[in-house]
């Protein structure tokens, strides 16, 4: 549990962080909460030569409402997302999701940006980012860009983020009628299967729906068949149950490990899809 030797420096601003990263010529890594990176380093599965600490960059953390959207800084720890009064009012499913990550130690250190950049296939946030159609704000040495969550998670630990870029935050239009439901892996409390779901309902009719899946596959992915099945349907339990029934049926790469076989995970996708959607239904107000 001892990492290989590394240098450490603390970034004072985003520009400073990017400059410091660039200077490492590919041998550096950002560190914020360290709850994804440090365990890998201790097992010597990741051996960065230089760590650039971005945890104390001013303005990188925080949750705010702006022009009808919510912005969350990449450095915001899970506990702050879980306990945010703003989110609990405007988008409680995201708070719920954060409150189910890991354990209290993880939630008080781990950050939103770190979780998204690491993209563990069983991480909770990615499913919720997909459900909320969130945009991930990315800054590089030359320019900033915004990536839709549905374009961000690309493969096993692989995201749409260049080696010289940093996640600065996310933004999304808050959805009150959303839910997150998860089958906990009892050791790590990662998701064996986790589903984020959001409903856009008008006059009792589902105008559109979004659902994101984590834990079951190599990376977080949208359940488009569920989304399509809900469109135009009445916002009722019966609609939700019908739509959830086939959730994930078309998925081909299903994970299998000691905590759950592929068969079990596949069977759990409809169960937790229904549960997430029912949470969303219950919040239509």
């Amino acid at each position: 549990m001892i990492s290989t030797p590394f240098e450490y420096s603390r970034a004072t601003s985003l520009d400073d962080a990017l400059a410091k990263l660039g200077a490492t010529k590919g041998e550096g890594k950002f560190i914020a909460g360290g709850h994804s990176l440090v365990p890998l380093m201790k097992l010597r599965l990741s051996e960065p030569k230089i760590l650039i600490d971005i945890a104390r960059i001013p303005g990188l953390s925080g949750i705010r409402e702006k022009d009808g959207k919510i912005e969350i800084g990449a450095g915001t720890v899970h506990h702050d997302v879980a306990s945010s009064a703003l989110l609990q009012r405007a988008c409680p499913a995201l708070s719920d999701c954060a409150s189910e990550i890991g354990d209290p130690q993880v939630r008080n250190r781990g950050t939103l940006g770190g979780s998204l950049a690491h993209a563990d296939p069983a991480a909770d946030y990615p499913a919720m980012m997909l459900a909320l159609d969130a945009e991930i704000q990315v800054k590089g040495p030359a320019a900033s860009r915004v990536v839709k969550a549905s374009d961000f998670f690309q493969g096993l630990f692989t995201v749409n983020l260049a080696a010289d870029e940093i996640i600065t935050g996310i933004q999304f239009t808050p959805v009150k009628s959303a839910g997150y439901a998860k089958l906990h892996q009892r050791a790590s409390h990662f998701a064996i299967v986790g589903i984020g779901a959001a409903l856009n309902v008008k006059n009792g009719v589902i105008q559109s729906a979004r659902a994101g899946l984590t834990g079951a596959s190599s990376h977080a992915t949208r359940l488009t068949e569920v989304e399509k099945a809900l469109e135009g349907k009445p916002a009722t339990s019966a609609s939700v149950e019908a739509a959830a029934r086939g959730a994930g049926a078309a998925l081909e790469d299903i994970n299998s490990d000691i905590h759950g076989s592929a068969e079990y995970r596949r069977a759990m996708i409809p169960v937790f899809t229904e549960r997430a959607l029912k949470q969303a239904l219950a919040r239509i107000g």
Partner: protein
Amino acid sequence: MAVAPVLPKLVGQRTKRREDPRLIRGRGTYVDDIALIGMQHIVFKRSDVAHGRIRSIDTSAAKAMDGVEAVFTGAEIAEFLGPMPIGTPFPSPEHRAVAVDTVRFAGEPVAVVVAADRYIARDAADAIVVTYDTLPAVVDLELAMTGKPTVIHPAFPNNLAIALVPSGTGVSADGSTVDDSAVDAAFAKAEVVISQRMMNQRLAPSAMEPRGVVAHFEPGKESMTIWSSTQNPHILRSFIAALTGLGQDRVRAIAPEVGGGFGAKINIYGEEYVTAAISKRLGIPVKWTEDRSEAFVATTHGRDILGYVDLAAKRDGTVLGLKIRLIADIGAYNMLLTAAIPTLTMMMANATYNIPAIRTTLTEVFTNKTPTDAYRGAGRPEATYFVERAMDMLARELKMDPAELRRKNFIKPSQFPFATQMGAIYDSGDYEKALDLALKNAKWDQLKAERDAARAQGRLVGLGLSMYVEVCGIGPSAALPTGGWEHSQVTIERDGRISATTGASPHGQGNETTFAQMLADQFGVPMDDITILHGDTGVVKQGIGTFGSRSQAVGGAALQMAGAKVKTKMAKFAAALLEAHEDDLVFENGMISVKGSPASGKSFASVAAYAYVPVPLPPGLEPGLSDEAFFEPSNNTYPFGCHISMMEIDRQTGEPTLLRMVAVDDAGNLINPLIVEGQIHGGLAQGIGQAMIEEVVYNEDGQLMTGSFMDYAIPRAIDFPRFELDATVTPTPVNPLGAKGVGEAGTLGSTPSIVAAAVDALSGFGVKHIDMMLRPEKLWRIIQGGQQGQGGQS
């Protein structure tokens, strides 16, 4: 003269642990906190294959690194360190602390680096290049018994460490003659026979503090001090003295704060021998600290015993006979007590019942896994599990209430002391009383109605009940190769404060508190005036250690005996001062006075001062107030209890939730009920962990799949309901305290009651038994199978 404050009696009080403030504030000193001038650091290079011949080891790159003091291969270590001893009389293959030519489990040490710091040592270990001729690995115990695909130790055909040892009715004490007639007759007249294969799965003990060693050999004095995170520093001293060739008078072993042991720190490990031997070889202090990844492979595992259980009964529920064929997967080597642990399973097969005929047999098997040894309960949870699961299945088969089936078969209070079929003499017990209290506290009939109401709504809710009896306070000396006694020395210091040593080296049991409570009452002084010293063979002259729930029952009795000797002498000094007869004196409220006239007394401190400057010296007395005692119990103690569980299983996902955990434990007289409850909480946590979320898993190649807390679940507060505890008190006659021991109790009754609750919850799907752990997928498959009409797991 001022009236002395009245001191309350402390034994039996819920006194808070005096250990906790320093531990909670981070002011404890653990092995890894110890630093000596010139100290070097050890890291072990470990095998990444489960079975293979070492073809080559290249240490040149490691040796060339800055800060590396020395690198030793297994062959080089073997030049100055002999094979590891074991503590049981069973045959055992040679076991080198560092493998010489063959590795037999993933994680076995193959080389040792000594360097200026841990970080350099770790990097140097990575720079050692080892090549192996990989051999097939075997991880399934029943496959291993066929000798295929590999034989791990050539001298042990079919991987049988112990081919077959019989025990029970008709078996002579030495096992040489076996008469099956009584057992056969019992099964011949049975109206119902329950037969079930049950796996009591492998667990990782996972103490919060991993192991660690500092060894300091002083060449000028030809003596060694060794600090180790151990449960038994005196046993460590004996073995280190033997293997280093130093006498026991030249070795001092110190167990500073020990952050949990759970039985896994009884064993004397290769890392302890190697660290000591290297310190002696190089003449410098060296330290080794186990990291968490190492702890999963290098610290012994627990359980991993398969039982084939047959229970014979009449249809009215009368139990007639029991057969248990035990097969223990002991991993790659015999450690200190490895071979003996499953013999405790045999010993406790009689459980709490009158069973006219019992036959157990034990086979122990080598596999390419980490060796097993003691783990909280050590053989007794397995016995409880096998018998109680069979009783539960019998109740279900006969459609009897599980409580009433037990009641019908209990050993009655009038039968104690009770000689079991397995050769044990149960000291005392009232099993029905514990059962009745548990039923009352759980509101058993109401609970059954709640369960039925929940089922009527389609919920999968179940109830489970289990009795247990365990063996604790192990003694006399015939029962333990180390000796079955415990030692204490009590000293009244010159200022009237009291220091007392105990050889029962605590590592979480709270003996600094309970022993101070006892002495405070014995001498009538404030508890704050008393210090309990332990864990240092330089201070504590003799001792065995803390394991098998023995520290209070055996160590506490030794303390009380030593205290009584000193008190007798102190009374003589006080009698001289008071011009009274020593038999007329009372020790209370910090005073020693003549009974009935407290105002005439002398302060405790003034009598102590007089004893050290005795002018005049009373005739027949030596100066000073210090004495010691060895307590040898006449027998083990046999605590018991009843645990009741209520569980709900999610019909869609198979996730189990424990709704209720009601426990009644009888540990005899309680010195401190608060500490007892803490011990039961910890035991329940680990029992619930085994039943529900803990399991060591290897893949077919012998690679550990649960090598971190990401994959091996340690139970946390969120995994438990509120524990509903209560106690009955049946004192033991085998020690003067009447205390039986309680450290392991929680692991015994909880697991079978929880599995019984799960089986009850899923009984509608035709399931009769479910092996632990209760993985959601396993339960989901039973539900799926039942729903599809295919029957469940049997």
